[in-house]
């Protein structure tokens, strides 16, 4: 699906990622401490920053030069870190934004509203006025509406109440089951590994460990990540 090979990238003159290769797989978890470079890696995957070196392939095609919106058109979806949504638009407008021009757009929106009741409740409120968690739910809903082939999630459960965390985690499993691939950054190692087919651990921009997912891996990973 998505191949990231020997990636070098950074901001301005700051190099953040060093020869990072992400294993391919249905659900891939990216783990690491603060500042390890996880977000950077995902931003690169969706095209917000360009690699200085390395291969970025999607469905066997080189997409290194594609703009993010083109990548979305090809079936990638991205949920950024930090509850980002369009504050000036209402919750509903946020959803319509992505639904626009899609067949069954309406149905897709309803599906998500059903999944996240809070959004239904505050459909007409400006997203900027929503609570943090509500915004995060909104962000995920936006991503799902695009019916992606690849879902890129940067700490999706951050700031969300446990019941819904469970809901989201459940959803991710479900989607994976339906054959959608997922690139996941998640601090809850347990869940991440449980969901993941493969995982990679980053430390200050270097890959320190990769391996098969599954709860079994937890202990080795913790060891790798222990401060």
């Amino acid at each position, binding site marked *: 699906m998505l191949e990231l090979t020997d990636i070098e990238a950074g901001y301005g003159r700051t190099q953040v990622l060093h020869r990072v290769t992400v294993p391919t797989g249905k659900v891939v978890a990216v783990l690491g401490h603060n500042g390890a470079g996880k977000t950077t890696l995902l931003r690169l995957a*969706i*095209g*917000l920053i360009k690699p200085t070196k390395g291969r970025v392939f999607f469905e066997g095609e080189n997409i290194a030069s594609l*703009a*993010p*919106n083109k990548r*979305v*058109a090809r079936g990638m979806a*991205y949920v*950024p870190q930090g509850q*980002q*949504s*369009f*504050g*000036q*638009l209402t919750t509903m*407008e946020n959803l*319509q*934004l*992505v639904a*626009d*021009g899609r067949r069954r757009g309406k149905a897709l929106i309803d599906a998500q509203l059903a999944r996240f009741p809070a959004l239904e409740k505050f459909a007409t409120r*400006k997203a*900027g*006025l929503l609570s943090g968690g509500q915004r995060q739910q909104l962000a995920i809903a*936006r991503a799902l509406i*695009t019916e992606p082939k690849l879902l890129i999630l940067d700490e999706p459960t951050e700031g969300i109440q446990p019941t819904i965390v469970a809901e989201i985690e459940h959803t991710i499993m479900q989607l994976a089951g339906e054959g959608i691939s997922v690139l996941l950054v998640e601090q809850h190692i347990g869940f991440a590994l449980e969901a993941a087919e493969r995982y990679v651990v980053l430390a200050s921009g270097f890959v320190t460990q990769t391996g098969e997912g599954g709860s079994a891996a937890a202990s080795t990973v913790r060891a790798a990540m222990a401060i």
Partner: protein
Amino acid sequence: MDGLIAPLLNGSAQGALLLLAALGLSLTFGQMGVINMAHGEFLMIGAFSAYLVQQVITASGLSIPVALPVAFVVAGLFGLLLEVTIIRWMYRRPLDTLLVTVGVGLILQQAALQIFPSQGVPVEKPRWLDGQLTILGYSWPMRQLFTILLATVCVAALSAWLKYTSFGRRIRATVHNRDLAETTGISTRGIDRLTFFVGSGLAGVAGVAASLIGGTNSQMGAQYIIPAFLVVAAGGIGQLKGTVIAAWAVGVALAFFAYWTTGSLAQVLAFILVIVFLQLRPQGLFTVRTRSLA
């Protein structure tokens, strides 16, 4: 009584012209956050295109109707050019666009001065705009009515465009958070170009109207830019209805001040008025609530 009606009409006409000038800004400035100081020069471009059209279509009855769309496209294309060459690099620092476009304005002015007769060119008003229409005992100059009509049409068209197509939404999303918009599948570049094209095009239309009211020369743009910005600001950024009301209010205020005081004092008072108003309502007439810091 006469001291009320006459200024009211003149004011509405002036307001309409102001509105036309401000309409484009309410897109490029209000929606996109670009402070385009060359907007006045785009207006000038519109006026000159009206003149050029008249060189081809000499029947002035026909030329103006033709000139309107032409001016829209020509000015729009200049705007587009500006966007793709310069503005596109500046979205991350809106205040700087102000300075860059000041430079653009200077260049356009000088170019116009050298290309066209320095004294300016005549834009012949169509005969069907001659004379006045007498409604309820007051004679209303056709030209003023035309300006008002034109403004109304443009506002209607623009608001429809923003309301009934998804563009309005996309523009706002793009401005609010480019990266997020991009990753949401919006072609932010496309949106930018389109918005800027339309915004500048509207300036062109305003130019045609202006060419029928004042002189058509290299300096004409300068006198509209500041008032236009004030109007957009007073209306509340990104608030079309606000812009409309503000423009009308400023126009009428100008007219009344001019009627009761002198032409110069009117300018001053009108400015002061807006400034004081913005003092009282810093966010303009209509405001978007945001959750502070969020």
